[in-house]
C-alpha cells in the first residue's frame, strides 16, 4: 500500500521497529549503517549463540524487509551522498541523542533545504526539548519515569522493570504513526515536517486510566500488589486484591474475574468444573452469582474463593485451561511463552507464522506474520534483514555512481 514512499532509516536498536512497521505496509525502507555495521548488531541474542554481527536476532526481527546500505554520514563525501539520497526520499527516521543530527549539519532545517517535502521523524526517550532532553534513556530509566515500574512487582521487594528490553518500541511505533500523519498532511500543505515519537509519553498513556484515574478523583497513588492489579471492595468496606495471574500445573494463566450479573453464568459453570475435580467449594454451593458481587463477600469468603480457584488451576495445564476457556467463553488465558505461541491453535488456524529463508544460514526461521490482514494485499514480513552493505551497489548505482567510484568509497571507508 505504501510502495510509493522511500524511507531512510538511521535508527539504532531502540527504534528499528519504526521503519520495520512502515515496511510491513510496503514502504521501501533503506537501513543506513556505519561502515562495518551498526553497533547494535553486537548485542545479543544471536543465532545459535554465535556472536556474529550477521547473526543478531534483534537485527533479524526488526530490520526484515529493509534494504541495507553502509554510509558514514559524518564524512564530507558521506554527507554529500546522504543529501543526494534525501532528494529521492520521503522520510528519514532517526533515534540519535537529541541534537546530534543538527550538530553534524543534518538537522531538519538542513534536510528541508535539500528537499522541502522531507519528513524527519525523531524517536527519543523524553523528547527533543524540555528539561530531560539530554537525559540518558536506557530502558529501565525511561520506563521508571514513564510510570510503569512503580506499580509492577511484589510489595516486599523493589518495583520491577522488564527482563525483555522493548520499552522504546512504544515511542518508536508512535513515531511510525506520526510519520503517517505527516504524510497525510503533506498532501494538503505540500511540505514535510519534523515529527517526534516519545517513549515517556507513550508509557504515560499506558498509565492513564489505571494509574492517573484514582489520583485524579481521590488523590490515591496505586501501588504494586504482586500478581494482582486492581482492588475490589468487600462487605466490610476493606480493600481486597484478587490475583490477575495464577499458577497452574505447567506455568501461569491470567483470569479476569468479574463478579457481576453479566458474568453469573460463567462463574456458575466454572464452579461446576471445579466440583468435578472433587474440590469442596464450601459456601459457594449456595452463592447467588446473579445478584451478589464483591461487596457482598466477607474476607473469609473471598479467601475461600481464591483457595478454590487456586487449587483448581493447579490441577490443570495451560492447554487444558485454554480449551476450557474457549469452550465456555471464560475470561481466562494462558501466560504464553515463545514455545506456547508457536503452537497456539488460533494463530496456526490463521496461518500467522511466516517461514522466512536465511540462505546464508542454510535455514528458514518462523517470524510473526502481519499485525493486520487486509483485502489490499499482504501486510507483514516478506524477506530477511539485510546483510552489512547488501544493497550498496543497487542504491549507489541508482544515484549515478559507477562501480569504480563505489569501490573507491569502500576503500576510503565512506561506505
Amino acid at each position, binding site marked *: 500500500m505504501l510502495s510509493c514512499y522511500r524511507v531512510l532509516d538511521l535508527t539504532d536498536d531502540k527504534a528499528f521497529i519504526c521503519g520495520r512497521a*512502515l515496511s510491513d505496509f510496503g514502504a521501501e525502507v533503506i537501513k543506513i549503517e556505519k561502515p562495518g555495521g551498526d553497533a547494535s548488531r553486537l548485542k545479543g541474542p544471536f543465532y545459535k549463540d554465535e556472536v556474529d554481527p550477521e547473526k543478531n536476532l534483534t537485527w533479524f526481527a526488526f530490520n526484515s524487509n529493509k534494504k541495507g546500505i553502509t554510509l558514514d554520514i559524518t564524512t564530507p563525501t558521506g554527507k554529500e551522498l546522504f543529501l543526494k539520497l534525501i532528494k529521492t526520499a520521503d522520510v528519514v527516521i532517526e533515534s540519535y541523542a537529541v541534537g546530534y543530527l543538527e550538530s553534524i549539519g543534518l538537522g531538519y532545517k538542513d534536510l528541508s533545504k535539500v528537499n522541502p517535502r522531507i519528513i524527519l521523524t525523531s524517536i527519543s526517550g523524553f523528547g527533543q526539548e524540555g528539561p530531560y532532553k539530554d537525559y540518558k534513556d536506557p530502558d529501565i530509566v525511561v520506563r521508571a519515569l514513564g510510570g510503569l515500574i512503580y506499580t509492577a512487582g511484589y510489595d516486599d521487594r*523493589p518495583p520491577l522493570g522488564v527482563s525483555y528490553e522493548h520499552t522504546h518500541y512504544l515511542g518508536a511505533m508512535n513515531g511510525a504513526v506520526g510519520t503517517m500523519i*505527516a504524510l497525510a498532511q503533506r498532501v494538503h500543505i505540500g511540505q514535510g515536517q*519534523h515529527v517526534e515519537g516519545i517513549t515517556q509519553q507513550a508509557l504515560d498513556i499506558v498509565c492513564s*486510566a489505571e494509574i492517573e484515574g484514582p489520583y485524579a478523583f481521590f488523590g490515591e497513588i496505586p501501588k504494586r500488589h504482586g*500478581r494482582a492489579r486492581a482492588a475490589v471492595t468487600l462487605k466490610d468496606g476493606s480493600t481486597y486484591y484478587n490475583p490477575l495471574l495464577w499458577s497452574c500445573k505447567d506455568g501461569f494463566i491470567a483470569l479476569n474475574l468479574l463478579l457481576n450479573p453479566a458474568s453469573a453464568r460463567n462463574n456458575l459453570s466454572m464452579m461446576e468444573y471445579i466440583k468435578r475435580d472433587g474440590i469442596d467449594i464450601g459456601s459457594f454451593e449456595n452463592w447467588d452469582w446473579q445478584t451478589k458481587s464483591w461487596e457482598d463477600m466477607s474476607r473469609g469468603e473471598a479467601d475461600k474463593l481464591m483457595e478454590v480457584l487456586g487449587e483448581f488451576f493447579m490441577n490443570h495445564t495451560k492447554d487444558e485451561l485454554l480449551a476450557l476457556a474457549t469452550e465456555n467463553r471464560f475470561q481466562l488465558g494462558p501466560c504464553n511463552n515463545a514455545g506456547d505461541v*508457536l503452537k497456539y491453535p488460533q494463530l496456526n488456524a490463521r496461518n500467522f507464522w511466516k517461514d522466512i529463508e536465511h540462505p546464508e544460514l542454510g535455514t528458514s526461521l518462523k517470524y*510473526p506474520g502481519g499485525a*493486520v490482514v*487486509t483485502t489490499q494485499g499482504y501486510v507483514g514480513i516478506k524477506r530477511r534483514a539485510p546483510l552489512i552493505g547488501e544493497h550498496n551497489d543497487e542504491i549507489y548505482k541508482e544515484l549515478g555512481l559507477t562501480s569504480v567510484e563505489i569501490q573507491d568509497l569502500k576503500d576510503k571507508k565512506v561506505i
Partner: protein
Amino acid sequence: MTKKPFEGVKIVQLCWAGVGIYTLNYLSHYGATTIRVETATRPDPVRLFAPFAPTNKEGEPVGLERSAFFSITHTAPELGISLNFKQPEAIEIFKKLVAWADVVGEGFPTGVMDKLGLDYEGLKQVNPEIIMFRTCGYGHTGPMADQPGFGSILTAVTMMDTITGWPDRPPVPPSTYYTDQLSPMYGSLAIMAALDYKRRTGKGQYIDHAQIEAGLNYMTPLILDYQTNGRELALKGNKCDYAAPHGVYRCKGVDRWVAIAVMNDEEWQIFVKAIGSPEWAKKPEYSTAPGRIADSDELDRRVEEWTANYPPEQVQKLLQKAGVGAGVVANAKDLDEDPQLNHYNFYRELEHPYMDKLRYYHPDPIKLSNAEPDVQRPVLLGEHTDHICTEILGMTQEEVDGLRKKGVFD
C-alpha cells in the same frame, strides 16, 4: 490556517473498550470528523469501569458519564449518536452514515456486526469504497474468532505477562491491559495506509486487526531466540545481561525508588566520580562490564547504600547531569508533577459536565511541527443525535422526533 492532516476524512466508529478508541484517536486528534455510534441499552462496558467521579447528590446514580476510565481514554473530538440496532430504522440510519464515511471502525467479537448484515460485504453494498477496520482479540477467522478479547487476557497470551519478575518467583503483570496500548499503533498505521491508498487509487478495503497478532509483532526476538537456541526468556529482576550496576534502588522517603543504569565502562567511571569515588568502587575488576556483572549483587548493595541517603529526584538530577542514566520510579503524583511531561503540555485539563475539571486528557505521544492535536472531553452518549440526523444526513426535525418516540435513539 494550515490544513489539518486528516481534514476531510470521515469516520464512523462503534468501538468498544480500549483498542479501537486508541487506534482512532490518532485520526480524530488530527482533523478527522468522527461520529461515535452507541446505545444506552447496551453501553460500552468501559462506561461502567471504576473509578467514578463522585456524584453531586447523595444517592444519585453514577450513570454512564462518570467513569474516569472512559473519560481518560476518550480524548479526541467526536460527535455522538445513539442508535438502538434492535430497531430497523436504526440500521437504516447507520447505513446512511456508512454511505457518508471513508472509514468504519468497530471492535466487537466476530458475529455481532455480521448478524446485523453489517459485515464488510454488507457495508460495501452501501459504499463500495469504504475502509472497514475491525479489531478484536483473536482476529475474525479461526476457532477463537468469536471470543471476547479483554486486554488483561490478551496481555497474557501475547507473552507480555512472562517478561516481568524475579528468578525465584512467578512473573507479575507489567500493567493490566498492556496490549490495549501496544496493538493500536499497528491499527492506526493500517487505517492511515488504507486512506493513503484510497486517495491514490479510489479503492477501499477490509482490515482485520487481531490484537494477539499485533501484540506478538513486538516480541519477535524472543520467538527467534527460542527457535534457534531453545531458550525461553529468563526472568532477572532488574538486572541486565550486559550492564551493571543496573537496577531499582531504595531512596530516602517512604517507598521511594530510583532506577539507575550504568550502560558501559565510560559511564562507570563517570558514575564513580559522581558518587564521590568511594574506596569500594576502585576494585580493578569493576573497570570492565564483565567484572561488574559478575559481582552485581554486591554492587547493587553498595549503590543502594548510597542512594538511601537521598530522595530519588536528587539522584536523578545528579547522575543525569554527570551523564549516567537515572530516573525517579514515578508514581501517580510524580507523573502529575513531572517537569518533562508538563513541558510538553501532556496533561490537558478540561471541563466535563459530570466530572467537573479533570486533568488527564492526553494528546498522542507524538509531536508534529506543523500540526497541533485537538484534545476534547469525551462525547456524551448520543450527545449530537439531532445534529447528525438533520445536518449531516439531511433529515427533518419531525422525522427525528418521530423516530425518537419509537425508541430508535435509545
